């Protein structure tokens, strides 16, 4: 009989676990897309175009081709033929419009557009030769200035799949006209670039037998695989995409980027392996968070109770695709008001298409809305936190549906207590220490909690080791670690007996990773797969002498712990998983399962809202003479349902907060419209927070049991950390200085200039 006296060790959902890929990452053994050693490989260096709009009139490749080691110069004139129809180029996001095709023709659509790919035996030769490709252009009139582009704004007739049109209620205009308290202002967010630390890169391993492995930086290997197969005519058996390690992405890897297209094209053309790595400058020639203009009108009773919400927003897109974001809905969902309306448009400019960047839509729309709410709170002479509570809505105020859960009150309460909000002096400019004004501000964060069809496989071997596989990605999110915890929880195995493989198109189906969906979806799939393994183990236990578990009718009747199945009704009866497999003559138990919303889930998704909430509190210290703003404290209290790994979830929030600090104070891609080009296209001039900028961040997860939101009760934490962090900081700056800034980032010039 197994020893049942000691307590089983249970590591599972809720246990803080070190990242399973930690040892590889800290020792340099983790291989990212450009780091696979492939023999006989060519280096491809992309030549970026120099005008924003127009056409190429000539390309002189003579000097480039004369560089020793140069093998080929691909341009629109000699590239291999590719399919004609747009539908072959559609990716998983399916943005309405004509997807960009590198080297397609002489037409130039944006500055930095790739105009040639130089292929050489060494990186240095390719880089030098690329500088010698002499391209001449005929420029056409262009515009990259957002303000000017607003004149052309429109609501696209074909909407992006993920777009949610605002639902209007009552008569917002009449209510605003009649309101005792009014606030109306225009808000702005600058263009931002994702700038993951790893540049977009692809290594194509051309095996020479008609198959190829594409090591690529992206957020979804199978989406990139489909894209490449559709364009280049490979079958999925022939073309495999691997993204085992991804050096950050934040949305820039949701769509296949042009380097993977060029690398595969070059490999097919030369019949050789090829590596193409973008330069940091080229990282500014594709995905970026759209610039945003948002006019907000709020009407309220004298007490501060909202009577109307009215938002009118525009975000930037390109001239060839209509990228859309949800901007105006967030305030309408979050706050009770009998009257509300929203309008939204896109404005085209001569840049690459804007893209999803961490918490797309909400990071812009909710953040700017929360600055407006702060302004109205001051007008109503109500404490900003009390003002939110006064307008609190227990239901989704726009869709008028209940939430599966909303522990925002608790987040406000716990965040305020940790921050010490009670001791805030209400008047602006009333707190000072030394030469610095001190300000305290707060804001509310909101994001969605989604669950999408995902598959996983669990494979238990007789030595008691479990392998979990799924094509899902880990872009720094800790996905693999989370899947190990779910497996450990389900089968009662210690994490060091569990290995995980993700980031490979050969593995069970997973959609692109984004929108804080991976933990809920991949976790649910792993749970199902492990439960299926558990059922077979219990069946195998019937073969064990004496059938100690014969009273168990299903896996509900046993606890999996410490590598054993223990009868719930009589814990003295247990069978080790290894004994069960041996008794049944099983070497391996392997099960693949798919988690997907069923009919009941789909009905529930229509009748109940699923959201994650947060309360962000910020302290700033401002030296007015120097224009220096320091964010000395942030408390972010998050209601995100069940937290699988508190350790990595906390890090997700920390990271979102830091990016929110960038949004508040630093991040701004600046264009010169004479050239039609982003000018600060490097990490010295596009400022992101550095270590010295980040003082003290406290993350709180409030208790929010929610068995209905997703199968594991998980809401996801990838996005919520950034949402409204910048608003809390902007509101703190107002409290410190009395200066209201409505255009982010709040840079030194703005602070000194007002």
């Amino acid at each position, binding site marked *: 009989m197994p020893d049942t006296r000691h307590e089983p060790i249970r590591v599972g959902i809720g246990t803080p676990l070190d990242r399973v890929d930690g040892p590889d990452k800290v020792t340099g053994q983790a291989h990212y897309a450009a780091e696979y050693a492939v023999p006989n490989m060519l280096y491809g260096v992309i030549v970026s175009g120099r005008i924003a709009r127009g056409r190429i009139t000539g390309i002189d490749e003579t000097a480039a081709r004369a560089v020793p080691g140069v093998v080929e110069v691909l341009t629109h004139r000699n590239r291999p033929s590719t399919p004609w129809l747009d539908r072959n180029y559609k990716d998983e996001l399916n943005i309405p419009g004509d997807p960009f095709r590198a080297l397609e023709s002489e037409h130039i659509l944006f500055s930095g557009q790739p105009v040639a790919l130089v292929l050489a035996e060494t990186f240095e030769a390719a880089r030098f030769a690329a500088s010698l490709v002499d391209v001449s252009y005929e420029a056409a009139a262009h515009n990259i200035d957002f303000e000017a582009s607003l004149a052309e704004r429109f609501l696209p007739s074909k909407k992006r799949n993920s777009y949610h049109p605002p639902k209007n209620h009552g008569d917002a205009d009449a209510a605003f006209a009649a309101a005792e308290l009014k606030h109306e202002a225009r808000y702005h967010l600058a263009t931002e670039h994702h700038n993951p630390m790893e540049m977009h890169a692809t290594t194509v391993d051309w095996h020479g037998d008609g198959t190829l492995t594409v090591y690529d930086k992206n957020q979804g290997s199978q989406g990139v695989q489909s894209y490449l197969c559709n364009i280049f005519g490979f079958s999925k058996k022939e073309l495999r995409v691997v993204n085992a390690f991804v050096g950050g992405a934040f949305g820039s890897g949701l769509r296949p980027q042009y380097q993977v297209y060029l690398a595969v094209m070059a490999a097919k053309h030369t019949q050789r392996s090829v590596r193409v790595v973008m330069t940091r400058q080229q990282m500014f020639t594709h995905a970026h968070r759209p610039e945003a203009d948002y006019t907000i009108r709020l009407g309220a009773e004298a007490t501060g109770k909202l009577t109307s919400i009215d938002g009118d927003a525009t975000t930037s897109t390109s001239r060839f695709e209509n990228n859309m974001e949800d901007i105006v809905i967030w305030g309408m969902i979050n706050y009770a008001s009998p009257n509300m309306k929203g309008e939204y448009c896109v404005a085209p400019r001569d840049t690459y298409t804007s893209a999803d960047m961490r918490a797309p839509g909400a990071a812009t729309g909710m953040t700017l809305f929360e600055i407006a709410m702060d302004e109205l709170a001051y007008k109503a002479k109500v404490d900003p936190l009390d003002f939110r509570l006064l307008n609190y809505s227990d239901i989704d105020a726009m869709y008028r549906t209940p939430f599966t859960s909303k522990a925002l009150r608790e987040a406000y309460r716990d965040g305020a207590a940790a921050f010490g909000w009670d001791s805030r002096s209400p008047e602006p400019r009333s707190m000072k220490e030394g030469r610095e004004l001190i300000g305290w501000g707060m804001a509310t964060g909101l994001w969605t909690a989604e669950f999408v069809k995902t598959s996983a496989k669990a494979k238990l071997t007789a030595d008691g080791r479990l392998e979990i596989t799924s094509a899902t990605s880990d872009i*720094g999110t800790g996905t693999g670690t989370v899947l190990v915890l779910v497996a450990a929880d389900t089968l009662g195995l210690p994490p060091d007996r569990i290995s995980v493989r993700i980031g490979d198109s050969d593995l069970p189906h997973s959609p692109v990773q984004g929108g804080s969906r991976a933990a809920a979806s991949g976790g649910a799939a792993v749970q199902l797969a492990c439960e299926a393994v558990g059922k077979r183990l219990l069946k195998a236990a019937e073969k064990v002498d004496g059938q100690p578990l014969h009273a168990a009718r299903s896996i509900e009747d046993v606890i999996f712990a410490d590598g054993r199945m223990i009868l719930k009704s009589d814990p003295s009866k247990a069978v080790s998983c290894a004994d069960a497999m041996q008794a049944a003559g099983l070497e391996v138990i392997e099960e693949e399962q798919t988690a997907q919303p069923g009919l009941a889930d789909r009905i529930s998704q229509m009748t109940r809202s699923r959201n994650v909430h947060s309360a962000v509190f910020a302290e700033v210290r401002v030296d007015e003479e120097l224009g220096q703003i320091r964010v000395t404290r942030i408390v972010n209290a998050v209601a995100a349902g069940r937290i699988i790994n508190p350790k990595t979830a906390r890090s997700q929030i920390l990271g979102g907060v830091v990016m929110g600090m960038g949004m508040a104070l630093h991040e701004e891609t600046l264009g010169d419209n004479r050239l039609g080009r982003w000018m600060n296209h490097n990490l010295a001039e596009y400022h992101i927070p550095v270590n010295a900028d980040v003082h003290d961040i406290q993350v709180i997860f409030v208790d929010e049991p929610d068995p209905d939101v997703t199968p594991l009760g998980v809401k996801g934490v990838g996005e919520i950390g950034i949402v409204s962090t910048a608003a809390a900081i902007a509101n703190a700056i107002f409290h410190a200085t009395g200066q209201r800034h409505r255009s982010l980032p709040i840079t030194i010039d703005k602070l000194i200039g007002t």
Partner: protein
Amino acid sequence: MSGAALSLENDPGPVVASTPIGTVPVAITINGEQHRLSLEPWVTLLDLLRERLHLTGSKKGCDHGQCGACTVLIDGRRMNSCLKLAVTLDGSEITTIEGLGQPGNLHPLQAAFIEHDAFQCGYCTPGQICSAEGLIREGHARTRDEVREQMSGNLCRCGAYTNIADAILEILETEERA
């Protein structure tokens, strides 16, 4: 709008290329192993490590000395390896992340980075750790503020800064006690 009138006439014009570029012999010790190499002068230390020696732990994040992802220790001092031409390093001793520790034999900083979850995507991490090792050897940083300031040449887009500071401070304090 504007732009059409503005052409870019700063083009230097076609450059006449180029006979094969010559190579220079260099002897560099990397992670304790001496390499006798024959290198073109235009090869940076970072590209030598990554593309020719397959030591890809040192990362390329900008190639312009702006991000710190390529930080290695050259004769014990932290440097951006993308800013060093390899041929200038004849006789130097270089330590990369691969030389600091390996899975199963972690350097204390590597273990502290795991313990404090001081990374997410992991791409800046080798540079952060090499930079932290250099910072500790410099001996100037004692306080958290000093660590934060002196680690500000290493960008982390995932925003793990507070955890990075925690990890480094733990090792600093351990070393001070020793």
